[in-house]
């Protein structure tokens, strides 16, 4: 880069004013500051030169380099563009401009510059590599592969090309081939980043020995990285070495407290306590950082989030997290088994699932997965098979009812009733029936189920909610309000409870209390991302 700038300086230097401060002298001072890495001083000096003579192309070009080094990308890009307006077509300047876009994260802008350079000089491997990296970043993986494949074959020792090709293969879903390339870069280039990526990839591909080896090498190179410890922890976890896994998870967390997977894994193996809540908070934090934009991370995040939610007894939320996989048609036996386990509301940790339960979980999971994937008729058949094969499995009809409820509430009601035939004291089935009838404006039908739900699970806020609403809507506002207030004490963050209270207060003339509850429920409900409401 320095050579490029000095070349520009030599070629483009124009006459500077002879009187007053000597711009050439200042330029030299700026260049010296730049060479010793004092970018702030260099920037200030180049600006002085430009103030004295705005047409000095070299000053704009070098100022661009300095500003980009300072992370002031937009200003740097602006300087390159000024320089290019004076020296149009300059390849070094366009390369620098492309690199500035690249560092800024504007891969489309960078790709445009690199593509034009590539057109002029197709043999420039550096430009090809950069262009392909940009194409991968903007999702043009096919184009990147087409560009890289022949060049990688012809230049097997070019590790930059190998790295770009490996990444493109991974993004194209060809992880095994991508892993080979990344491993090559790691070993030949003794590249830490490549070792870390290779460890991750090997783990994802179930090449456990390889994953362990790559992670260990990465730790030897830099013991302060969290990610390789996490890989080692997961290896131990899979191998049943709980103690070893715990040590590695803790090491990962000590290095980086934001490593959400470590926290979640610890939560999944430890008793339900603050650790679990903390794991969920970490998931939220991770999501807010939008680190989940990469598919691999998103999968890991959703999967573990679902398991944590299930451990908290939030089975419906857990299924919601699993629904993401169905919507993307991402399936794996382990995932299906977990969907089944969670759908049937079993709290046993995954590793303790008994062999005889596995077929039940797989059957329930397959049926639920199909439904969540939008294959409703196939799901119906699978559920019927499940009911035939396991006629007394608790919560199977409840699971199907829950899935049906949003689209076919009448059929859902039938499933909840079927569930009660198997287990009359099932609090969730009673609650759902009460809720379904309340939503159909049939509080009389809801009342008996609501009473049963409250009797079976008085500690659950929803059981208090359905009983409270059923009573209010069948004319017993006083008792109903009592149950609703109790529900609000148990779960003040539940907007449905505040909706119920608003109605109860409104009907009994407590106008201000009703208004307060309405405001509270609006505060607690999330505005729809896409407000669709049929006409």
């Amino acid at each position, binding site marked *: 880069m320095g050579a490029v700038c000095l070349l520009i300086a030599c070629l483009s230097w124009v006459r500077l004013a002879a009187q007053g401060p000597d711009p050439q002298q200042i330029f030299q001072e700026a260049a010296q500051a730049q060479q010793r890495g004092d970018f702030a001083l260099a920037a200030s000096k180049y600006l002085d030169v430009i103030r004295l003579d705005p047409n000095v192309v070299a000053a704009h070009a070098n100022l661009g380099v300095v500003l980009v080094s300072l992370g002031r990308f937009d200003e740097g890009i602006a300087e390159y563009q000024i320089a290019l307006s004076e020296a149009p077509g300059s390849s070094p300047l366009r390369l620098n401009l492309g690199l500035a876009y690249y560092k800024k994260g504007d891969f489309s802008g960078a790709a445009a510059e690199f593509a034009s350079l590539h057109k002029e000089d197709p043999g420039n491997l550096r430009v090809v590599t950069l262009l392909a990296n940009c194409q991968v970043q903007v999702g043009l993986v096919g184009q990147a592969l087409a560009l890289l494949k022949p060049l990688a074959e012809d230049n097997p020792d070019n590790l930059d090309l190998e790295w770009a090709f490996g990444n493109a293969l991974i993004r194209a879903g060809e992880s095994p081939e991508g892993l080979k390339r990344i491993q090559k870069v790691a070993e030949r280039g003794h590249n830490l980043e490549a070792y870390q990526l290779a460890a991750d990839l090997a783990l994802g591909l179930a090449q456990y020995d390889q994953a362990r080896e790559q992670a260990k090498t990465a730790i030897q190179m830099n013991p302060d990285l969290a990610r390789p410890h996490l890989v080692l922890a997961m290896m131990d976890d899979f191998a049943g070495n709980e103690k070893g896994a715990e040590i590695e998870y803790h090491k990962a967390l000590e290095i980086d407290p934001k490593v959400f997977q470590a926290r979640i894994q610890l939560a999944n193996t430890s008793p339900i306590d603050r650790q679990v809540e903390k794991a969920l908070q970490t998931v939220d934090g991770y999501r807010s950082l939008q680190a989940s934009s990469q598919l691999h991370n998103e999968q890991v995040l959703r999967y573990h989030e679902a398991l944590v939610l299930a451990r908290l007894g939030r089975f419906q939320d857990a299924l919601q997290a699993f629904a993401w996989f169905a919507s993307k048609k991402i399936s794996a036996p382990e995932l299906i088994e977990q969907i089944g386990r969670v759908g049937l509301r079993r709290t046993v940790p995954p590793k303790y699932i008994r062999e005889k339960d596995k077929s039940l979980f797989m059957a329930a999971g397959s049926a639920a997965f199909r439904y969540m994937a939008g294959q409703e008729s196939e799901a119906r058949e699978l559920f019927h098979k499940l009911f035939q094969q396991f006629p007394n499995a608790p919560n199977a009809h409840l699971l199907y009812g829950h899935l049906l409820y949003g689209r076919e509430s009448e059929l859902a009601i039938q499933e909840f009733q079927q569930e009660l035939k198997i287990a009359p004291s099932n609090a969730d089935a009673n609650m759902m029936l009460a809720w379904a009838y309340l939503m159909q404006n049939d509080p*009389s039908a809801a009342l008996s189920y609501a009473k049963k739900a409250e009797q079976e699970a008085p500690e659950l806020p929803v059981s208090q909610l359905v009983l409270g609403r059923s009573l209010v809507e*069948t004319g017993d506002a006083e008792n109903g309000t009592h149950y609703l207030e109790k529900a609000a004490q148990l779960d003040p963050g539940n907007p449905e409870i505040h909706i119920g209270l608003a109605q109860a207060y409104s*009907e009994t003339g407590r106008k201000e209390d009703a208004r307060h509850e309405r405001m509270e429920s609006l505060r607690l409900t999330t505005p729809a991302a896409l407000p669709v409401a049929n006409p």
Partner: protein
Amino acid sequence: MNAWKASASLHPRHCRWQTLSVVAIILFWVGSVPAAGQVAPQNFSSACARCHPKEAASEPTTPMGRALELPGANPTLASHPKLTVRKGPYTYTVQTEENKSVYSVTDGIHTIAIPIRWSFGEGAQTWLLEHNGEYYESLVSYYPSIDGLDITTGDGSLKPDTLEAAIGRKLSNNDVTACFDCHATKAVSNGQLSLATLEPGVRCEHCHTGLENHLVSQIQSGGDIVSAPPSLGRLNPEEISRFCGQCHRTWELVARRGWRGVINARFQPYRLANSKCFDGTDHRIGCLACHDPHQTVVRDDTFYDPKCLACHAASGSSSLPPRPARAKVCPVAKSNCVTCHMPKVRLPNGLMTFYDHQIRVAKPNEPYPN
């Protein structure tokens, strides 16, 4: 059980229709035998007209009475033989010939054409379409404001990637049931769609449940007023809001679904309940305080002044009997209250305008209160 509960429990999907002999008695009573294919429920309206002629005559002509229109009885399509609009890569056409309308969508290469059987809405009109065993809400609708087609309200975010998806929004069973349950009478029985018994539009028994018992007892008692259906007029404002909200959307539904922003101006029960003056027990504020569902909505703003002044009149200035809790008197004007306090709101698509039922002192340029 109060009146709301009585009426709610007889919501169409819970109606328990009595034996055919009951229908036969009613037919005999109204003195006419239906022609072949004529559905019996029409005769309930005729029967009602004997004692409630005013309501029975006006209600079928209201937008609610004409909330669903069938082929051959659709003045909008009859007067617009060809409607067409292009949206992205798709061109939509609604063509009407000899009382038969066809909705078609083409990408220039392939075309899907579907006969229109169900037209929802009397002003703006959306079509419910059947294609390959599935129901769709048409992606384009007719809007009087442009006298033409545009994207159906609420569907602006849909980006169809196939010709089939371009027909419209695919509906679940719950959706279809909900559409017919609001736009027709006796369309839903035991939670299931019952097109055989459907009567287009909102008819007497859509709201006045328990009607059949009332009619039978009227006949049997020789005209005495017995077994009257629960009086909806006696429901308190909270209850009537929820009653009307079954179709116009309840406060709780809008809150739960997170429908925020200008789009919820369409859901009057929600907006009204958000008003500072809304009181679930004060009959001076509520759907029926201002609107008679048997009549077309009054468009003259001054019509509503007495409704506002029922609370907001200076002491002694009202001809109404004194009531507790008089509210503040407007210092600006004493007429056309709604023009300031219920400002008109245009939906984001610019095609429909609604009076905002969140009654308030609306300040210029204030953000839309959710």
